[in-house]
């Protein structure tokens, strides 16, 4: 859920109201002028109707130069954007022959396969010569070549499912599969922010559709219980079957799906699961196998896995992977298999080759490098954007990062200003997002170099200042990481480190620890965190603490219930801030007292503040020796110099990690002090 500040909501509504009123005003005069002219409709009803048409004519056309910018090169890290001009107030745009070389932050070129590739391109051209660009036939007629069968085998083994079927277009994959699987008397439970292709597929199926709140497993459970108990509407017969549809990475939010929890709920209520990995397959996970790999979910738990080849693989088409029987059934009756033209052979070859590169079957480690690069790039870019004070949505590791704009006037402003500085960004408005929640979206690619990203950040920062979208004003940022180590029961006592040893890690070191934990691949156990628990944890025993959790969002989930939660807290009483900070904010139970925040706190005291912090919570804490008071998620803020002092200790801890099954208990990544969003600049 995105919480819009009141003022922003107000100004956004006002802007749209103004645009609407002005548009209606113009329409009124247009009608008056056209009064005398003969009616061109001649008995037909107008072909474009109502508000939709009004929106296009009076709102969209004003800023249409921000969308659909043509390019004249491959959508690589840098591309050529064709310049356009308009002689009629943006109603029509004309191309020129001039191009400007821009940094591409818009394409879904996650792994950098969009441009010519030393391994893929020669093979694609060879395939083109052998098979021509098209088969001109559907899969079931004469459109199945050796290549298509090979592709299906590759895809199935890549996503770790017994069988797969491929289609010529990702959108069609969703919209033609759902009607095959579901029908009357069936129930589709869909995430509220699912892609339009899923929505259309669900509508086309004739099944009943219910929606659960975006990415909230508890609401999904509520809906499931209610629906199973109620049965079909009116007849109250039991549902024939229920399918839950979620996406791996939500393309407009950049969020990762809470897959393990959702799978657990679905299993409990015997609902089938359908996972759309359009944006996540190839882009996340250690070997690029998508969210399942990233979040440690067994693919056997997911009934239908869907994905597209347009994004990470730099090709076109989509796939469905599942059990042998499922695929057999789809081949028997799916309209997209029976009637639609099969995947173009060169595109099929591109997919096969890129999968081979990702898996290292090409004889190099380029695939692994690409995967490491995209992760590093995305996390770097995201954290830098956050530091600048942009309101960035989405989770770590996700290469998609939306920056909230809200006000309609900021959409073209941001887009045009960035383009002026040769940075091409995507701005998204209605109908792809709700009217109020317009945003800019950045897609990071493995082909971006560090210099590219730094340049982009400079430009975005500058434009952000100009446009006024750095909504979170940051007073101070302290970059350090504190890690408590809590030893689980099984650990022999001799190897336990001294109790309550706060460890400060540099960013990189923390990554190593987290990575190690991941590699151990322990079973996922998770903790559902409620606001109440958080309040209790954070405020601890200090009753006088007036801090209150405003919102929180999980930003990382690892093994053993490890969870990093970003908490945004609101200080309710200014005067108490100083005391509160020392008593409870600064590692309430750790006794670290390492922090010298006085300089910052003086600045803070003058204003109402919100604190944003990352908390790492572990259910194992109760048994640990690191935290004698039980599972208290305290934290420590350390200065950078402090880190050097405990580096040696960190090394020891790392060694412990290697030897023992340890649980990373708490981790503070960043403390951000910020004021209330400042909007009306």
């Amino acid at each position, binding site marked *: 859920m995105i919480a819009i500040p009141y003022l922003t909501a107000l100004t956004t509504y006002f802007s749209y109201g103004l645009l609407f009123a002005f548009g209606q005003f113009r329409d009124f005069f247009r009608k008056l002028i056209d009064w005398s002219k003969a009616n061109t409709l*001649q008995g*037909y009803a107008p*072909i474009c109707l109502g508000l939709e*048409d009004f929106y296009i004519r009076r709102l969209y056309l004003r800023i249409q130069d921000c*969308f659909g*910018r043509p*390019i004249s*090169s*491959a959508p690589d890290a840098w591309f050529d*954007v064709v310049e356009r001009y308009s002689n009629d107030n943006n109603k029509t745009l004309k191309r020129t022959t001039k191009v400007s070389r821009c940094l*591409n932050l818009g*394409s879904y070129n996650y792994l950098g*396969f969009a*441009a*010519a590739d030393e391994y893929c*391109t020669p093979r694609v*051209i060879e395939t083109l010569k052998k098979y*021509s660009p*098209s088969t*001109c*036939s559907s899969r079931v*007629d*004469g*459109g*199945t*070549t*050796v290549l298509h069968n090979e592709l299906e085998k590759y895809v199935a083994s890549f996503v770790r499912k017994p069988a797969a079927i491929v289609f*010529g*277009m*990702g*959108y069609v994959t969703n*919209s*033609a599969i759902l*009607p*095959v*699987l579901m029908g009357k008397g069936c129930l589709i439970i869909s995430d509220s922010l699912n892609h*339009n*292709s899923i929505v259309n597929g669900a509508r086309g199926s004739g099944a009943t559709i219910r929606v659960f709140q975006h990415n909230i497993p508890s609401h999904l459970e509520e809906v499931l*219980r209610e629906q199973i*108990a109620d049965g079909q509407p009116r007849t109250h017969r039991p*549902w024939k079957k229920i399918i839950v549809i979620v996406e791996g990475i939500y393309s407009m939010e950049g969020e990762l799906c809470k897959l393990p929890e959702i799978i657990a709920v679905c299993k409990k*209520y015997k*609902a089938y699961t359908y996972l759309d990995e359009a944006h996540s397959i190839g882009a996340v996970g250690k070997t690029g196998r998508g969210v399942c790999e990233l979040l440690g979910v067994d693919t056997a738990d997911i009934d239908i896995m869907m994905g597209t*080849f347009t994004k990470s693989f730099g*090709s*076109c088409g989509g796939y469905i992977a599942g059990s042998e029987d499922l695929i*057999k059934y789809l081949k*028997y009756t799916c*309209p*997209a298999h*029976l*009637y*639609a*033209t099969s995947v*173009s052979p*060169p*595109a099929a070859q591109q997919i096969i080759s890129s999968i081979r590169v990702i898996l290292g079957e090409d004889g190099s480690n380029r695939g692994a490098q690409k995967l490491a690069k995209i992760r590093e790039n995305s996390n770097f870019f995201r954290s830098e954007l956050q530091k600048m004070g942009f309101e960035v949505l989405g989770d770590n590791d996700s290469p998609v990062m939306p920056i909230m704009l809200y006000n309609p006037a900021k959409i073209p402003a941001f887009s045009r200003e960035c383009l002026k500085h040769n940075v091409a960004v*995507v701005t*998204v408005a209605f109908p792809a997002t709700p009217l109020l929640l317009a945003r800019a*979206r950045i897609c990071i690619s493995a082909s971006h170099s560090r210099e590219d990203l730094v340049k982009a950040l400079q430009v975005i920062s500058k434009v952000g200042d100009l446009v006024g979208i750095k909504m979170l004003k940051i007073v101070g940022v302290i970059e350090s990481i504190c890690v408590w180590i809590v030893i689980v029961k099984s650990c022999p006592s001799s190897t336990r480190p001294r109790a309550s040893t706060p460890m400060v890690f540099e960013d990189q070191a923390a990554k190593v620890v987290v990575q190690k934990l991941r590699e151990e691949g322990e079973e996922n156990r998770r903790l559902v965190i409620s606001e109440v628990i958080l309040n209790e944890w954070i405020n601890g025993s200090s009753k006088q603490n007036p801090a209150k959790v405003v919102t929180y969002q999980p930003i990382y989930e690892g093994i053993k219930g490890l969870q990093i939660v970003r908490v945004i807290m609101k200080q309710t009483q200014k005067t108490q801030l100083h005391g509160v900070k020392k008593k409870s904010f600064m590692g309430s139970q750790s006794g670290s007292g390492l922090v010298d925040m006085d300089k910052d706190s003086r600045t803070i005291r003058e204003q109402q503040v919100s604190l944003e912090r990352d908390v790492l919570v572990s259910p194992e804490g109760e048994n640990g020796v690191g935290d004698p008071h039980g599972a208290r998620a305290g934290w420590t803020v350390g200065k950078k110099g402090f880190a050097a002092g405990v580096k040696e200790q960190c090394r020891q801890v790392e060694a412990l990690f290697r030897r023992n099954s340890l649980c990373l208990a708490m981790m503070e990544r960043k403390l951000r002090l910020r004021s209330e969003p400042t909007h009306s600049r």
Partner: protein
Amino acid sequence: MAEAFMNFVNTTLDWVTGALDMPSARAQVFGFQIGGHLFIEVFLLVVILFLLSQKSYKPPKRPLTNKEIDELCDEWVPEPLIPSLNEEPYAPPVLESAAGPHTVINGKEVVNFSSANYLGLIGHKKLLDSCSSALDKYGVGSCGPRGFYGTIDVHLDFEARIAKFLGTPDSILYPFGFSTMFSAIPAFSKKGDIIVADEGVHWAIQNGLYLSRSTVVYFKHNDMKSLRETLENITSKNKRVDKLRRYIVVEAVYQNSGQIAPLDEIIKLKEKYKFRVLLDESNSFGVLGKSGRGLTEYSGVPIEKLDIVTADMGHALAAEGGFCTGSTRVIDHQRLSSSGYVFSASLPPYLASAAITAIDILEENPELLSKLKNNISVLWKELSKVPGLKITSNKESPIVYLRLEKSTGSQKDDLCLLEKIAQRVLEEDSVFVVVSHRSTLDKCRLPVGIRLFVSAGHSEYDLRRASESLKRVSEQVLGGHD
């Protein structure tokens, strides 16, 4: 005993009479004696008011307890995700080379009648050259939807080229032929609008009709009388019809029967009843008409009379994708309202470049069209004499459609017979023909059949080989059934 009772009755009566004779009971209202009624009526009124003031009886509402819901959830057993399939699905032959007029299956060269490669452009050198230079320049995929840097200059070039070729103001390029119709229809027709469609339209159109949520009325396959009656019915019955958007949806060459729609008659009806026409030219674009401009050219109808024309580029143009052409207003509306255009990554640029080249080739080589027309008429003539099979397709349709003369009664058995013929034709004579497989979702109830896609690349010898083989095999297969 009886006396005592009588006494009691008498005293009661006296008392009642006394009560009624009381001074108040003898009151007069506007000169009328009201008698004792007043008391009784007042009493009744009080009773009625009392009863009304009481809550009506409602059975107490008892929502399910958590435990009961738990039990219900435990009890519920879902159906399997997919119904169990008794038969093995049809396994299509696997091609080992390009799907041109001749292809390789199981190491054997066969004549290919399964590919809608009408102009024989698969493997055309110019086409391959334009593709490989596009691949070098643009890579394979476009990595984005049209709105977000997925618009490559070749897309715009293609849109301009196709509009110029067909003589329309503008056109829009879709990433997949299959998605063109089911995106374009819901963009223009919403709940309440009326669509009159042919019952033989293919699934992509059926899906578009369903997704639009409009009122859909089907008329008999390619039957103008039925169309007129349907239109008459709708316009006479519905008074609000003037306010609604009304469409006729037809295919130029029906994929499900090979018949050609009589466009001139449809236009007459459309103008009479004021309907708009959506025409799918997937199997006629690049085939019909003097210069391959499709059904409009073939039937001499100016293209402006049609409102929306769509076509699949995966047929005559030997590329992939689809386009829609029409007035600027119609096209611009789709750029923001058509789901398959807005929410999907755009067409790989090399395919757009292939399609541009394909149109160039078509314009430069009119002999391709005459060759194709000649091939169609030769094959049609030859196949009209196949024993046991009947041609349903039009003489000029590039799809030659053969159905069983005598259906067995069930579509499944028909399909089995036809499949047997197709299989034997392939195995014995190396001629690759296909049977029209239907999805269980397909609402089209036209008879199934063997489909031959004629190409300009077929030689006379290929055609003869196909027809002779079909004749021989169907006589053997169907001969036993008569």
